[in-house]
């Protein structure tokens, strides 16, 4: 059979567009409505997506309370409880949640994800993050955000312990720099061998950790060249760890806006962009750049010179690169990033979007895509009913699930 792309449905409350909650076709109460999420998961499952994916932060996403109050992102479900509920309301689709290596212990995290895996019959995955936000750090002690390198050092040890615990009886305890664990897990072995390991960090140490441990890598890449360079680099690092290139599925984020005509799709997108307040856009951009005083600079001027951040190194570089390349002002950049959160954004017809996805997939820049609908449920429905059938018609995406577990959907080896 020809190689087929993998698709994730990245669920996020009212939608990925920062102003999604203000859109009349978004479910404004999504953050307190479990039925909203059950419906989204069922839509994604009916469209044969490999997985639903939930992002996470253990704290507010925006320190400025006035700005936070103009977005829908200060409240929502905690993702492990959310996915545990979805696990028994779906039967085939994978369930992947983000969880932090900085604010958990490996025994507890391994046990919780294994329980989700048991509830779902082998459909769980863990997206490892080290948590770059000082807002989160303040909920877990008074010492502040740890440096990037220290977080990744801890993450490496954390991932090793979790993987060891998931491998069952062979676990002989661990006594390391950051963690000590005496016993194997008290739950039966995973129905898929072990939950799927996902990562998103794109810095140099992040890539090495992914090359060593990840089954799936989410990434943000705007252009084909960036996506291809990342893809080739990550796959080339894997041999060092004795792994085959196909052992990792690289799934860049894509923020599509789809309609019957291209003009309609652009109109739909512009409608959303107009709902973004300038101060919200600038605040979001500040977050990506890991600086707090971007609002001091003239909004129609260029980005100021910035020190290298201890937060999200890779994301910062991406923003700076784009601002220089396209000569964008702070306002333009803010709108641009607010609209897609640094991910690849395409507006068009189903045929146009399928063309773009096909080009990256067949051009060796992606094994699949993590789809980030602008607002829910409308834009997930649109992708499911317009784009997915087009991909299926081209033989690029499955018409039925072939397997039962997330590992089987993704074509990943079962760990021994």
């Amino acid at each position, binding site marked *: 059979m020809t190689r087929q792309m993998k698709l994730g449905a990245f669920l996020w409350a009212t939608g990925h567009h920062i102003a999604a909650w203000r859109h009349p076709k978004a479910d404004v109460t999504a953050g307190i409505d479990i039925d909203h999420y059950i419906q989204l998961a069922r839509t994604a499952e009916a469209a044969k997506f490999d997985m639903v994916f939930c992002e996470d932060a253990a704290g507010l996403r925006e320190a400025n309370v006035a700005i936070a109050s103009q977005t829908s992102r200060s*409240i929502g479900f905690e993702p492990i*409880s959310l996915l545990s509920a979805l696990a028994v309301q779906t039967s085939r689709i994978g369930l992947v949640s983000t969880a932090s290596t900085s604010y958990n212990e490996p*025994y507890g995290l391994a046990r919780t994800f294994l329980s989700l895996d048991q509830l779902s019959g082998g459909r769980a995955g863990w997206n490892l993050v080290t948590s770059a936000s000082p807002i989160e750090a303040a909920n877990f002690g008074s010492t502040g955000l740890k440096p990037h390198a220290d977080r990744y050092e801890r993450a490496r040890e954390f991932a090793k312990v979790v993987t060891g615990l998931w491998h069952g009886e062979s676990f002989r305890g661990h006594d390391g720099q950051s963690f*000590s664990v005496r016993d194997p897990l008290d739950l039966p072995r995973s129905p898929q061998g072990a939950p799927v390991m996902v990562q998103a960090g794109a810095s140099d140490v992040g890539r090495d950790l992914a090359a060593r441990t990840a089954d799936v890598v989410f990434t943000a890449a705007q252009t084909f060249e960036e996506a291809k360079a990342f893809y080739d680099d990550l796959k080339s690092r894997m041999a060092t760890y004795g792994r085959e290139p196909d052992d990792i599925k690289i799934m860049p984020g894509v923020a599509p806006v789809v309609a019957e005509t291209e003009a309609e799709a652009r109109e739909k997108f512009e409608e959303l962009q107009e709902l973004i307040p300038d101060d919200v856009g600038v605040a979001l951009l500040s977050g990506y750049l890991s600086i707090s005083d971007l609002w001091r600079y003239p909004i129609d001027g260029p980005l100021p010179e910035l020190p290298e951040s201890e937060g999200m190194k890779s994301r910062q570089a991406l923003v700076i690169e784009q601002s220089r390349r396209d000569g964008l002002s702070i306002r333009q950049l803010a709108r641009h990033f607010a609209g897609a959160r640094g991910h690849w954004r395409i507006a068009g017809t189903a045929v146009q979007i399928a063309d773009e996805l096909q080009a990256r997939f067949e051009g060796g820049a992606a094994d699949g895509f993590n789809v980030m609908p602008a607002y829910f449920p409308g834009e997930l429905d649109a992708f499911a009913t317009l784009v997915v059938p087009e991909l299926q018609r081209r033989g690029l995406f499955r018409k039925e699930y072939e397997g039962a577990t997330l590992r089987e959907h993704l074509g990943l080896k079962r760990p021994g």
Partner: protein
Amino acid sequence: MYLAVSLDIALANGQALTFSDLAGFARQAEAAGLDMIVLDDSAPHSAASSSPFEATTLVAALATMTEKIGLVATASTVAHQPYNLARRFASLDIISHGRAGWNATMAQAPREAANFSRPDGFSAEDFRRRSEEYIGIVQGLWQGWDADALLFDRDSGRFHDPEKMHLLDHKGEFFSVRGPLNVARSPQDTPVLVLSGLTEGDLDIAARTADVILLDERPAAENKARHDDFKRRVSACGREPDAVKVLTDISLTADSISGLAGRLEEEFRLRGCDGFNIRLPAQLSVFDDFIDRVLPELRRRGLFRERYRGTTLRSHLGLAGGGEQ
């Protein structure tokens, strides 16, 4: 009287319970009108277990399969950071539309700390002070958003009212937590706090913080003295004595069914407790006998309500909201 049923999912006769067994059990308990199910969690007890599930994930799943019954998960203060635990339960409370509770045990599980990078555990005194601080943080975080904080006002662009979101700014001996929680207030205000594994030194903490306490079974006269003493402590904290429900554990066995209704009535009428936590044995079929034979008798005697009157766990238990709004 109030009736909880408690299930140690790890016990089940050496044979793992499937999710559908557990969903069937939850629906049976709901059809019988019981106030809540308390799910033990196996990790604290031993490394050998036959349970495939961790309790909070199981409660999330059961919440979607039931509509009325309260769902209480045991979760350890060693296994979770307070911010994460507060979030998990606040989220469970929204998933269940106001039926979630946290069972915090005040007894330190000997093996557990060694799996959480604390090979030496905590001294009894440290563990108690740490637990008290922990509970205070969790309850504080649960009150971080006022009930009317969410505006959903698309036209003005005001999603929530920033004045109605409150930082915790806790700095204590063991923890430092800024808050607020990133989960909204629940339909029952805050999850129900159940405390178990209490010793004498924990009673004042329970009197200040708990909504429900679970106590082990003692001879009737002793139960009454203990109950009276506890309610005095609750009053001394400036709370209504009725603000904390005292449930006595009853271990259910096949032999204990006959005459059980009478025993429960006697103890309840003596004011030895506000209700019971029926602990099920590995042989779950005994629960059928309890529902078929004991429950109708309690109802006939006017000791247990015929049906649910409200939709939240707090309403089942006759509890007010979880704190200042």
